[in-house]
């Protein structure tokens, strides 16, 4: 086996030095009746060339070459080449969690830079080193709010990503944490502020909204914050599209921001690994889950970084920890760090502007076709929009697929009231030609006789 650095001769010599007659001696503590007396029924050992061939075939079977307007929490952006060059350096790739600070300063400084840039973008004071993804980050933010406020009821906007809400339901079910869902304004697609006002009480621990929300609409954060804070509840803002922060006002009124940073240079990879992160106001840092890198000095006064405030964490506090999280998404956070540094101050703005322009053009072009209209047209959007068509989405999407276009995702799957509505996304990688091709298919609807 090519990964194993031993000859049979060496194995025999080592066994002899141990004083074992055979390798089976070393497995003697396993009761004989449980020992596997046969080969595992898995594929035979493959050559590297066969492995590459197998996965290439799988990739081809996956159907490539489509123009995709899918978004909904997973966004296709251009990934600068240096990201993969750098994260494949073995010193990053094959290093463990930086508990031994003296020999992991590289990872630690990069985490510190990640935390700094996330805090800067979100308008928060501090950010952690990452969470599994945006959905678990949002759910853990609500648990964090419970620890901060001592209250045990949550209010969640219906316009938070439906799968994020499902994850929150899973996390909350045994925490004695009932959640109330607040609907949206049918005209703007924003959270219904009157309904929110009615739902938030003195027992509410936090209000969780998403902005831009699941429909791509930017929420009125100051107004939501006012309602939450008036009753002493925290405001948690979930951000599924990190690139929006290049041009959308950061949610500075929030107490906690739970973000998915996949857009920062992370491949779609069929939904993972992505990069969640929690940012917050400084006073809540001791209730945060996950790892934090902090700056300090060594004995000679040199600057260095360590994992800090570990008394929040499971390896110290066990059942009293702020979370059970251990492994996070470090290497993916490094991708995001490099992405943020590549685009930098000017680039993040310019990139976000391109997204805004593409989506605006797509929304107007598609929404302008006969039999189609733009929903929630009255509110500010980033790069997603909801299209309502006379034609059933299943049929429309089939026609688009025949033209090598993956259209918007059908919303009735989560919002039965949004009949014939699809959620479209146009990032900077979508071309005008692709938008216009989709519009032609849309316009080409057969009229039933």
């Amino acid at each position, binding site marked *: *086996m090519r990964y194993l*650095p*031993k000859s049979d001769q060496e194995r025999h010599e*080592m066994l002899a030095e141990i004083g074992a007659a055979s390798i089976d001696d*070393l497995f003697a503590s396993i009761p004989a009746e449980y020992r*596997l007396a*046969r080969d*595992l*029924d*898995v594929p035979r*050992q493959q050559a590297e060339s066969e*492995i*590459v061939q*197998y996965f290439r075939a799988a990739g081809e*079977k*996956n159907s490539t070459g489509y123009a995709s307007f899918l978004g909904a929490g997973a966004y296709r952006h251009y990934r600068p080449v240096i990201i993969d*060059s750098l994260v494949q*350096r*073995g*010193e*990053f*790739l094959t290093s*463990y*969690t930086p508990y031994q600070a003296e*020999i*992991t300063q590289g990872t630690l400084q990069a985490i*510190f830079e990640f935390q700094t*840039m996330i805090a800067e*973008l979100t308008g928060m004071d501090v950010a952690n080193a990452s969470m*599994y993804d945006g959905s678990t980050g949002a759910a853990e933010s609500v648990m964090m709010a419970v620890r901060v406020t001592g209250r045990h009821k949550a209010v969640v906007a219906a316009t938070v990503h439906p799968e994020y809400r499902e*994850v929150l339901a*899973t996390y909350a079910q045994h925490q004695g944490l009932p959640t109330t869902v607040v609907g949206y304004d049918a005209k703007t697609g924003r959270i219904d502020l009157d309904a929110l006002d009615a739902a938030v009480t003195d027992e509410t621990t936090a209000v969780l909204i998403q902005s831009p929300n699941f429909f791509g609409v930017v929420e009125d954060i100051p107004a939501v914050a006012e309602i939450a804070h008036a009753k002493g509840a925290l405001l948690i803002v979930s951000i599924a599209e990190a690139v929006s922060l*290049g041009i*959308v006002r950061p949610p500075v009124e929030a107490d906690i921001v739970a973000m998915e940073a996949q857009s920062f240079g992370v491949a779609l*990879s*069929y*939904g*993972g690994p992505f990069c969640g992160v929690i940012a917050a106001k400084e006073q809540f*840092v001791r209730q945060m889950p996950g790892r934090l890198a902090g*700056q300090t000095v*060594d*004995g000679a006064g040199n600057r260095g970084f360590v994992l800090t405030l570990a008394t929040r964490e*499971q*390896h110290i*506090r066990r059942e*009293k920890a702020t979370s*059970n*999280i*251990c*492994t*996070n*998404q*470090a290497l993916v956070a490094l991708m995001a760090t*490099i992405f943020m*540094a590549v685009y930098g101050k000017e680039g993040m703005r310019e990139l976000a502007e*391109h997204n805004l322009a*593409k989506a*605006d053009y797509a929304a107007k072009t598609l929404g302008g076709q006969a039999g189609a209209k733009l929903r929630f047209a009255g509110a*500010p959007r980033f790069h997603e929009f909801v299209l309502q068509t006379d034609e059933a989405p299943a049929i429309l999407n089939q026609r688009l697929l025949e033209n090598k276009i*993956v259209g918007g995702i059908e919303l009735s799957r989560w919002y039965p009231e949004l009949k014939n509505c699809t959620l479209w996304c146009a990032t900077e990688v979508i071309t005008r030609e692709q938008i216009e091709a989709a519009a032609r298919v849309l316009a080409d609807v057969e009229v039933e006789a």
Partner: protein
Amino acid sequence: MAAPENPGPHTLGKVRPHPSQNEALLFEKSSPGKRAYKLPPLDVPAVDADALLGSAVRKHHAELPELSEIELIRHFTRLSTWNYAIDLGMYPLGSCTMKYNPRVNEFVARIEGLAEAHPYRPDALAQGILEVLDLLQRCLLEITGMDAITLQPAAGAHGEFTGILLTRAWHASQGNPRKKVLIPDSAHGTNPATAAFSGYTVENLKSNADGGIDLEALTRQVDEDTAALMLTNPSTLGVFEHQIHKIADILHAKGALLYMDGANMNALVGKVRPGDFGVDVMHLNLHKTFSTPHGGGGPGSGPVACKKFLEPFLPIPVLVRDQNGPNSCPDAGDWEDTNAEPTADGCPPLFRAPVLKPDGERVGDTEPLPLHPQSGELRWEYNRPQSIGRVRAFYGNTGMFIRALAYILANGPDGLRQTTEDAVLNANYIRKKLEDLYELPYKTASMHEVVFSDKRQAAKGAKTGDIAKRLIDYGFHPYTVSFPLIVHGALMIEPTESESREELDLFIDAMRSIAREVEENPELVKTAPHSTRVSRLDEVQAARKPVLRWKPQS
């Protein structure tokens, strides 16, 4: 000619010092106007952001750094050289299974059709990746001897959470979710944190004199309120619970379940299967046993495998195979049919489509589990009324599934078994070569890791943490320090199968040399490391006055 006065850089074991570059923070290197990006010309009309976004527009640019591409390459390359890594040498962190991360795994995970697949693309366009997931699921079920699996959890602790929720859902379906989870005092910290997170009370189970499960204590503590025992096997001492079947029987007699923390599966793969020794539900760490890279702390992946009776509760969605296309079978959503043979009217066996039987019975076919796709379309099934729900968005850390499968394919059945044997061989070799100098608190047979204590060295003032730091000077990453908690001053050493005898011998030499240093000059060890860019860092200051982000000097 006489030898030069200065013989050159000092060599210690396998290392000698060489310069490393200083590198400031990105923000300190930034200067306005520098760029590392270039966007293509906008092919649609430019927009007025103020007009489109109104009060929601960002007024001030985020203060991100401004650097050129070469500076970024140097920045992150320099940082990387400050890290120790498996690629540089042995990384014997017990419990973490720091094995070689094959490069072909990285290569195949980046194949365009896989890496660029959107999670919401129609199932019909995702058949390639779904075949990968299906084959991985079947391999992991075969390796664990379990009946059903979810790949969704993002890491080991997330898998624990999922597994305990399955346990809870099953108990609830029996009429009582129960109140407590038993956890041995040798367990990983994630275990009690998980149980608490899942709404259970944690009850500590004291280990016996061998560091294993105390059957009498277990019998006393298991009652009708006990949901499960969370057991790591082999234990964190690297010891196989040889009374495992009795443990399972004691639990099952009271209706409690056996959860296995699969962190130490690297000691078992191909030799013994948890499903065969009474485990009801377990998680795997693909980033440990199945070689997906640790990446400085993640991403991981923590699939959960379970017995058939827990299958209805698995997180949604689950992967199913329709042999006659979607919705062709009226019972397709019925979990009870999930393992059934195809019925007369062509209804498919769902979920795993176990085409091959474990007893090897195959008509006219002597090949192992076929690499190539089975017939029928794969799709995600959401209609699972008893499911615990989702534990994360989408389907899991797919990029890690690709890597783990590539590892399994590279090994095959013979390679997987040899890997396990070599991992156990290496740990026992280290034990044999160090047990005269370091105290072995438990004499029970070691599997893939060995745990010493610092008892003899601590008497001279050098504790496990000091020895660990001194190991850095010898060119090794430290072992796991002060864990498991049942060993005072633990040195937990897991070499994995990836170490050659030469590397093991260098490690052994280093450990023996340090033991001598402790005798002769303990101060040298207590103040280690002496060869790193930074010496021991002030953790108290870091925690007392946290500086968690850079700020411009005012």
